């Protein structure tokens, strides 16, 4: 044997998590960080709703209101739901394809820390002279120096750093899924969640560079006197809108596709049936991913692109409803005639279906350009995207968390609290957002901090705020559930739901090498195939042997810290700090590239017995 160290490095507690390259621990990091940002974004939402509870009140004032809506949107999209999606992908995808690891464990850790430090940078703006206030879309010229304060610099740099993390995370999953599948795991045997993660990662790869460029240009305008978006010097504000939405529209599919994947897994497991129309599901996912790139200008109908462009983009947008409809019918047909159970995971999944359908229908309404002139920038749009993002994605995430919690943490979440969690959140959600459709149709614009009495807007706004409290209670119940689960001493079994895919074939939580022996996959729903054949677990594809593992490393943390420091240098025009930060990052890259990582081996006799069996 060559120069490999033969012992697992002994690290524990915080140090373990700061240096880990294990995808399962990185999943937990994503979940914790995303969860905290979710609570922050939720608090911001609550303040927005309180300000709008009654007409003409001055709870937070116009300036703070602008900061709140900007930070709420930005936080929720980039710092809350994206990382929670990444948490599920990290925890589950390698297990579902029978892999020991992801393709680039080091890059995986780097992706997390970049996201984390980007998010922290963005949020420190609250304490350093004011948060960004130009809306989460940061439209120029509003977002240029004349109209917006330093907050937008935080937006630009925070999102840039976090976005880099997302981009490399996406590449990592693409390579993992293409190259690391267990023997027999053909593409058409991959579980739907893996499929949707795959397509989502592809969308990330092609969508994020557009926002990277947009942010660079905005940064140059704000910090170095560039003129991209300054009409007085020949600049063009519509360029920002194009770049933002070339990223932004695919982004909403980056968000929703993994939720589709979760729903597919959950509905089929709890109906005890294989997913209806599996191959049409795969096809629909790919088609949605493709069309997601063709429709960005439906966010720009009112910018004057002209009738032809508007018509084409409107039609392309409506086309997306077709594959989406296929998916909805397939879920319904999966349940049809199944032996359905309703634990919390499935409640959220089933609640998802009608809610998301409503959101999709208002989407098609918005996609009619002449009608959009009426809806645009009204509360109707707010209702639409919350129906898809909260009623779709967040329901999907809750479903996935209840479903995979035992696998991730080895503890079951409590079902009684779970049901209360579901019902308060579900009812609160509809109370909050259903009235907003009508508020919009009655003329309430979005992004205004108050409204006048007696314009028929009082009642709708009041109900909406009450609903927001319902969602808050639901979220708090989830946190309580997590604490209860952490305290309980009962351990979750390997396969609590009578599952169908590979992740249920190994212990909960999985050992650091996932599979003792790489499994041999013999069909779609790999574990179910073995169960039906009367086998106790998966058939191994290789003899038991030593397992090679990558070493932990502190470099990802340091590299991200370097960029974090450089970010402040840019914001405060202190170029010494910029140079120090960038040099720190570069020297970490240098260290990494000259020092090869030999990793270490886990020896045969150290392997836990259970291995591949259920």
């Amino acid at each position, binding site marked *: 044997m060559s120069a490999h160290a033969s012992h697992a490095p002994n690290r524990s507690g915080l140090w373990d998590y700061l240096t880990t390259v294990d995808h399962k621990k990185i999943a937990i990091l994503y979940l914790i960080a995303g969860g905290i940002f979710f609570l922050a974004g939720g608090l911001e939402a609550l303040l927005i709703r309180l300000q709008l509870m009654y007409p003409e009140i001055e709870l937070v004032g116009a300036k703070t209101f602008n900061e709140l809506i900007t930070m709420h949107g930005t936080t929720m999209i980039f710092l809350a739901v994206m990382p929670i999606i990444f948490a599920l992908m990290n925890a589950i995808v390698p297990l579902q394809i029978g892999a020991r690891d992801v393709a680039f464990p080091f890059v995986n850790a780097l992706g997390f820390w970049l996201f984390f430090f980007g998010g922290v940078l963005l949020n420190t703006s609250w304490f350093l002279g004011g948060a960004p206030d130009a809306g989460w879309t940061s439209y120029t010229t509003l977002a240029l120096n004349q109209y917006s304060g330093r907050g937008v610099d935080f937006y630009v740099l925070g999102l840039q750093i976090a976005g880099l993390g997302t981009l490399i995370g996406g590449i990592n999953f693409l390579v993992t899924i293409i*190259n690391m599948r267990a023997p027999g795991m053909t593409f058409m045997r991959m579980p739907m969640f893996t499929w949707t993660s795959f397509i989502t990662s592809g969308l990330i790869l*092609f969508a994020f*560079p557009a926002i990277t460029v947009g942010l660079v240009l905005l940064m140059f305008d704000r910090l170095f006197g560039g003129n991209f978006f300054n009409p007085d010097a020949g600049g063009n504000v519509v360029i920002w809108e194009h*770049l933002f939405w070339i990223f932004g529209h695919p982004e909403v599919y980056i968000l929703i596709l993994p939720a589709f994947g979760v729903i597919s897994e959950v509905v089929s497991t709890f109906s005890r049936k294989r997913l209806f129309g599996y191959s049409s599901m795969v096809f629909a996912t790919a088609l949605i991913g493709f069309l997601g790139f063709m429709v960005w200008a439906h966010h720009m109908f009112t910018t004057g692109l002209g009738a032809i462009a508007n018509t084409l983009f409107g039609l392309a947008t409506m086309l997306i409803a077709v594959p989406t409809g296929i998916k909805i019918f397939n879920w319904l047909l999966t349940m049809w005639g199944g032996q359905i159970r309703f634990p919390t995971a499935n409640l959220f999944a089933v609640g998802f279906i009608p809610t998301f359908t409503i959101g999709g229908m208002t989407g098609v309404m918005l996609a009619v350009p002449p009608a959009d002139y009426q809806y645009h920038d009204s509360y109707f749009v707010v209702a639409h995207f919350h129906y898809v993002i909260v009623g779709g994605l967040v329901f999907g995430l809750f479903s996935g968390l209840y479903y995979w919690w035992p696998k991730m943490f080895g503890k079951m979440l409590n079902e009684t609290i779970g049901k209360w969690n579901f019902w308060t959140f579900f009812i609160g959600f509809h109370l909050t957002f259903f009235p907003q459709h009508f508020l919009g149709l009655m003329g309430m614009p979005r992004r205004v901090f108050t409204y006048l009495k007696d314009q028929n807007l009082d009642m709708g706004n009041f109900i909406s705020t009450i609903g927001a409290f319902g969602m808050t209670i639901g979220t708090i119940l989830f946190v309580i559930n997590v604490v209860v689960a952490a305290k309980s001493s009962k351990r979750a079994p390997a396969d609590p739901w009578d599952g169908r895919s590979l992740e249920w074939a190994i212990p909960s939580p999985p050992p650091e090498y996932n599979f003792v022996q790489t499994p041999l996959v013999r069909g779609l729903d790999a574990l179910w195939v073995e169960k039906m054949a009367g086998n106790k677990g998966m058939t191994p594809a290789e003899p038991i042997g030593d397992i090679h593992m990558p070493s932990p490393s502190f470099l990802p943390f340091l590299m991200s810290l370097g960029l974090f420091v450089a970010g402040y240098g840019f914001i405060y025009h202190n170029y010494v700090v910029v140079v120090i930060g960038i040099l720190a990052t570069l020297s970490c890259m240098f260290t990494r590239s000259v020092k090869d990582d030999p990793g270490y081996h886990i020896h045969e006799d150290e392997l836990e017995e259970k291995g591949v069996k259920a």
Partner: protein
Amino acid sequence: MANHHAHAVLPDEPEKATLEGKNKVLGFWLFLGGETVLFGSLFATFIALRDQANGGPTSQALFDMNLVAVATLLLLTSSMTSVMATLALHRKDLKKIQLWLTITVILGLGFLALEIYEFVHYVNEGLKMSTSAFSSAFYTLVGFHGAHVAFGICWITLLQLSATKKGLTVVTAPKFYLACLYWHFIDVVWVFIFTVVYLMGMIGGKVG
């Protein structure tokens, strides 16, 4: 898989001999896909703004084709030498790899020097970042490419230094391969810059 290292006989296509190597090559191709979108967005922005000189110097008034032609020649030749390095890699000939890459780096440095000279010259002619939308778009697109060249030079040099110690192994082979791929990519981008920025900029006003 990961067990046979340096002392074993080097397999064919050493850059893809291990799973790590295969992952790196695939990941890097995907990364280049992302870079394509990145440059595509910059090009689109440039094309939209190329005639917005805002009273400042225009591309027709500034561009010196001789200088750009020499720069292009240097970079295209360096692309060829990087291909020679890849061929040497497949022959597992470390000496030749090092030779060709050294030439590549020198040519790259020449290109970079010309570009810096060009930028300084334009600034003296009154084209600053803040002059016009055209100037911002020009410096950003061409500068981004220049930064890629500079990064590539540092990367390849570093690789050459560490390979003198480590030799050609299944660990270093993918790194050489990727560096050459990267260098190739930035050459291709330059061909587009040459066409869209310089050639179209000389004609002026008609296209785009």
